[in-house]
């Protein structure tokens, strides 16, 4: 069963969770054999950007030692064979060109989205 995950929520609680929880879930189910592809849209297209840094939260004496590494997680999904798409119009709206993106992320034009959705048994919008 081929599934499309659409993600548009970006950087919501990622510092506290030390992950984007949808990218994390996607990695888990891909590891369990799910045939899934990830479409980033809206602000989530920024997840495909190289050079994202979280230096680690410090609250009082507590120091975060495992900050979120979204770029690593995008690369890990690609390495696992999960297609990672980013809506081209949303990239352009945010001034993002192809050379700013993690290698392997595939821009998808909005006009091609219906056909891509139709090729999936399920489409889940996170």
């Amino acid at each position, binding site marked *: 069963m081929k599934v499309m995950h659409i993600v*548009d929520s970006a950087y919501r609680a990622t510092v506290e969770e030390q992950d984007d929880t949808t990218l994390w879930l996607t990695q888990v189910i891909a590891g369990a054999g799910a045939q899934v592809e990830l479409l980033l*849209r*809206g602000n989530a297209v920024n997840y495909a950007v190289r050079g994202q840094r979280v230096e680690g939260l410090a609250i009082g004496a507590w120091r975060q030692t495992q900050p979120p590494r979204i770029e690593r997680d995008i690369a890990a999904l690609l390495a696992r064979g999960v297609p990672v798409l980013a809506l081209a119009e949303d990239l352009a709206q945010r001034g993002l060109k192809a050379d700013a993106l993690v290698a392997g992320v595939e821009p998808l034009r*909005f*006009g091609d*989205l*219906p056909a891509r959705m*139709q*090729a999936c048994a399920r489409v889940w*919008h996170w």
Partner: protein
Amino acid sequence: MTTTPTLLIDSRDPFASADGGFARELALALARADVPVTLFYVHNAVLGTRRGAKVKPHAELAGSGVTLLADAFSLAERGIDAQQLAAGVAAAPLDVVIDKLLAGWHVIWH
């Protein structure tokens, strides 16, 4: 390839949400690709269905073959009677969502 009809549940209001147009644009794109599509407004998204609301005309969607429904519960909650709905939009019970899930539609919450 068999076409899978799509129910888009739009929960984002068109006034406060900069992303309020995505469901609408996707509905149009699906309809133009000959995919049967229903756009079901819930929560503050129904605020855009009141006749006279300053939003993109629903008629364009309806004219393109998109079925436009608004959750009766959300409408009543906001004091919008069926008679006050913009042309092309009909009130509907939430059962529609369960019906489409059972019918195997793509059901997508936005």
